[in-house]
């Protein structure tokens, strides 16, 4: 199965790195990208997604605000979100999960780390 995965980050380079890391991790995916929360919501309206990977700290709409908007949306509320973040507070990462985030990947990340969290969130058995 190929998953539709949306990568949301205000840095074009970081989006490219995340996409490359997903490919290196061997996750079968069609990759989409958005530079901010508003573009992400538009993309979610246009194309059914299986997973969203989002930065937490973005100008304008933060990653957490994107999650709240998705939860309030009929079409996007069931799409799981993994935040990819340099957030230093462990307590805040736990709080994110209570607010609806399904997984967290801390930067700097590795292909193995990304694959593990994606597989856990998508319910894919480990090879």
């Amino acid at each position, binding site marked *: 199965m190929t998953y539709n995965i949306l990568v949301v980050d205000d*840095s*074009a*380079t*970081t989006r*490219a*790195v995340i996409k*490359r890391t997903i490919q290196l991790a061997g996750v079968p995916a069609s990759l989409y990208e958005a530079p901010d929360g508003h573009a992400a919501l538009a993309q979610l309206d246009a194309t059914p997604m299986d997973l969203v990977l989002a930065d937490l*700290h973005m*100008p304008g709409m933060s990653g957490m605000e994107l999650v709240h908007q998705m939860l309030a949306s009929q079409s996007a509320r069931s799409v799981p979100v993994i935040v990819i*973040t*340099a*957030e*230093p*507070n*462990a*307590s*805040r990462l736990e*709080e994110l999960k209570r607010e609806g985030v399904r997984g967290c990947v*801390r*930067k*700097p*990340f*590795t292909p193995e780390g990304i694959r593990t969290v994606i597989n856990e969130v998508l319910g894919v058995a480990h090879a």
Partner: protein
Amino acid sequence: MLRTHNASLVEAFVRVLETMAFISPEPREAPVTAPPDLLLGRIEFSGPLRGAVEVVASEAFGALLAANVLGTSPAEPDAADRGRDAIKELVNVTCGALLASLASSPTNPFEVNIPRLSDFRAGEQWTPFVTSRDSACFDADGHTVAIRVTGLD
């Protein structure tokens, strides 16, 4: 306490660069000549401690950094833009790694701003930067990179 934070910053920076870009930086002792075309990546934080993490690196190092993380060549046409992005991300992730190693609490968490990138005037700013007691210099794959954490006194 500042000396401890500087050591933590060095440890965070080395780990981030190795993990992100497969670059193992080697410490360099002053005096260190300023490379050309320098950029300053800066990110401010507050909470249990207040300050900023700064990284000074050349545009050429930025291009190398971006190429390493993307698996591309530093000579590609958009290398400069990606390099600037990569330096911002380096200071962002280094700050996160540093603060994650320091104590915070749910009632007093660290707040981290958006990283900023600006030009760095080597003639005026390099020597004060690298000779400040809270800074460190590295050779990163042949490129000189300087880092420091400020404002924690």
